[in-house]
């Protein structure tokens, strides 16, 4: 009896064990299957070799095909001294734009660095940006040093390949030579508030316009800027700001011709100060920009220059109050397709010369002409990394002539994913 019972128990136990084993086996099987379905164990983000620390690298390729009714090589903005840097429309026919090489990475827990080198179509290498930026100051403070795009205005810190039009607005061309990227330092503070409040200051050498790259100790150009911004519901985001720039150029010279066609050289020394008011608003249904979205952007510039103007070596008092503005809107009406319109205008304002220079002697500076421009564009982006653009413009930068421009442009980005700057 006992033996029978024991036997039965033993059999039952064995069966149980077998059953248990089976279910364990099944469990294991299932787990293996599950694991197989998942990816292999998370591998290091990048190769574990020495190149794991390679910085993020991206390259921007650009080019244009242009049809211009005026010769771009004699481009000028009437009423405004040439800035000595890019500003003219691209060459007629096919031309390569600036190829940009962007290298960026964290340096250590305290700093990040970025290099933006532009390979210009005439085979020159230009350092657009090369700066370090602090990461660990805290309290909303960030310090930047090196060569960088100044944070004044709205469009100034945005790289050219991310602009909504092929070229810079007229006030940027006339007052900043396209954009300000001085050598210097920047300190920026973000207020501890839910509303975005940014205050900053920059000191630089005054390497480019409106500076004159003076050979002296200390800062030749400095700026102050403040921006506020926020959201209106889920659909709209905005930012507005005011910036101030002061430069002390010494003999900021340029060559020109008088009304009779004789070559003349003029140079400004003194104080150049400028105010910029900027505004940007972006709208997308529910904040989802993938199908449709709208962008409104505008900036107003007001510049005062006081000092001396030398005319073929002979100095005389000079003062000017000039202004300019632009407004533009870009609408994405369906995925991949955007259309935009821009109007820009410069006001020659009041220009006075102590020695009585007139339009006969300096037709470029002494004029009652107000340059303006109308621009239309349509662009098509197959993906986030490629964009093709058609831009039409009626450019009245030069007194008395309208430059009708048709531009076809491509902008392609290779490598690391770009930043979605507001």
């Amino acid at each position: 009896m006992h033996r029978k019972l024991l036997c039965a128990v033993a059999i039952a136990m064995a069966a149980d064990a077998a059953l248990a084993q089976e279910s364990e086996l099944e469990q294991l099987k299932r787990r293996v299957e599950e694991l197989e379905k998942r990816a292999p164990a998370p591998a290091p983000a990048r190769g574990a070799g020495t190149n794991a620390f390679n910085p993020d690298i991206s390259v921007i390729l650009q080019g244009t095909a242009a049809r211009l009714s005026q010769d771009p090589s004699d481009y000028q903005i009437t009423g405004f001294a040439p800035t000595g840097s890019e500003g003219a429309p691209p060459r007629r026919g096919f031309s390569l734009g600036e190829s940009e090489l962007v290298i960026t990475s964290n340096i250590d827990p305290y700093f990040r660095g970025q290099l933006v080198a532009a390979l210009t179509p005439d085979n020159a290498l230009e350092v657009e940006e090369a700066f370090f930026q602090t990461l660990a100051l805290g309290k909303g403070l960030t310090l930047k040093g090196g060569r960088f795009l100044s944070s004044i205005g709205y469009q100034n810190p945005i790289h050219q390949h991310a602009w909504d039009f092929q070229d810079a607005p007229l006030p940027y061309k006339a007052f900043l030579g396209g954009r300000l990227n001085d050598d210097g330092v920047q300190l920026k503070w973000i207020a501890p508030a839910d509303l975005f409040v940014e205050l900053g200051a920059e000191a630089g050498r005054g390497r480019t316009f409106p500076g004159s790259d003076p050979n002296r100790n200390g800062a030749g150009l400095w700026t102050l800027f403040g921006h506020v911004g926020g959201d209106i519901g889920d659909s709209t985001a905005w930012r507005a700001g005011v910036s101030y720039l002061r430069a002390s150029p010494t003999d900021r010279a340029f060559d020109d011709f008088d009304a009779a066609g004789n070559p003349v050289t003029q140079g400004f020394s003194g104080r150049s100060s400028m105010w910029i008011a900027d505004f940007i608003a972006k709208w997308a249904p529910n904040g989802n920009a993938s199908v449709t979205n709208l962008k409104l952007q505008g900036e107003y510039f007001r510049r005062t220059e006081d000092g001396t103007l030398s005319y073929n070596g002979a100095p005389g008092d000079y003062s000017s109050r000039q202004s300019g503005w632009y407004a533009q809107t870009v609408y994405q009406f369906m995925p991949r397709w955007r259309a935009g319109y821009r109007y820009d205008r410069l006001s020659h304002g009041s220009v006075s010369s102590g020695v009585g220079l007139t339009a006969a002697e300096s037709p470029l500076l002494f004029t009652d002409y107000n340059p303006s421009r109308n621009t239309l564009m349509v662009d098509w982006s197959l993906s986030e990394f490629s964009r093709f653009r058609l831009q039409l413009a009626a450019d009245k930068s030069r007194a008395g002539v309208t430059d009708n421009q048709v531009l076809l442009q491509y902008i392609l980005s290779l490598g690391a994913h770009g930043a979605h700057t507001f």
Partner: protein
Amino acid sequence: MRLLLALVLAVAALQSQAALNILACEPEWGALAKELGGDKANVYVATTALQDPHRVEARPSLIARARNADLMVCTGAQLEIGWAPLLQTQSGNAKIQVGQPGYFEASSAVSLIEKPGTVDRSLGDVHPQGNPHMHLDPRNIATVAGALAERMASLDASQAAYYRGRAQEFLARWKEAAARWEKQAAPLKGMPVVVYHKDLSYLLNWLGMREAGALEPKPGIPPSTAHLTELVETLKRSPPKAVIRSAYNDPRPAEWLAERAKVPVVLVPYTVGGTDRAKDLFGLYEDTISRLLAVAS
């Protein structure tokens, strides 16, 4: 004197009550942070369920929130590559930088699927570390919840027990709910569906559903007529049960295809806030499953 003392005490009390400021990159992590943080955490969510997390910009309001955050909770795996790094570098906040305890990447706690063998942009906007949309597998939520609670506990040590307690309580409820969902979703097993973007892969994987095609020709590339026409032909041979789109997707391509393939379109919330019922993580899963079940039979 007594007044002064009262004032000092009041200020001290206020300071000790100061909650952990959390900036969540996506609504799912905002909801999870609220579950774990209770009234000890101030949670701000950077995006909504109607926004594509790939395509967000570093708006001024987000920089302002990043400035004050003690903890930034993101998905990682390059989902926010276009904007989270800008929030870090622009905010002047040392706490939320990469490598600091104040920056938490949910994807680093789980193993990602669909890790591409080759990484090349000709494959679309691929993510080298794998598919980042991993919050639609409840097992991942559970793993992330544990890791996030530990992170919150280490950042705010005075409330460590509170966060851990809430995590335990959440995980108990979550595991029970997940078991229930798996049972409910049994009829979905093997169901072929067309998706919009590769953002539902974890859900399909978890429920054993089958992806019969995607509206996007390549990840991150908007649907084109050529691709959709081709897809209609493919689907004729093996018809799907439905076309699924996430709340933030453009409805038109899904409707266009569904009409031609003669199948219904199912809208899923994708994340918290995507539909009225998806008020929290539980609602997100419940609504997703019930919407899928509605077309399963």
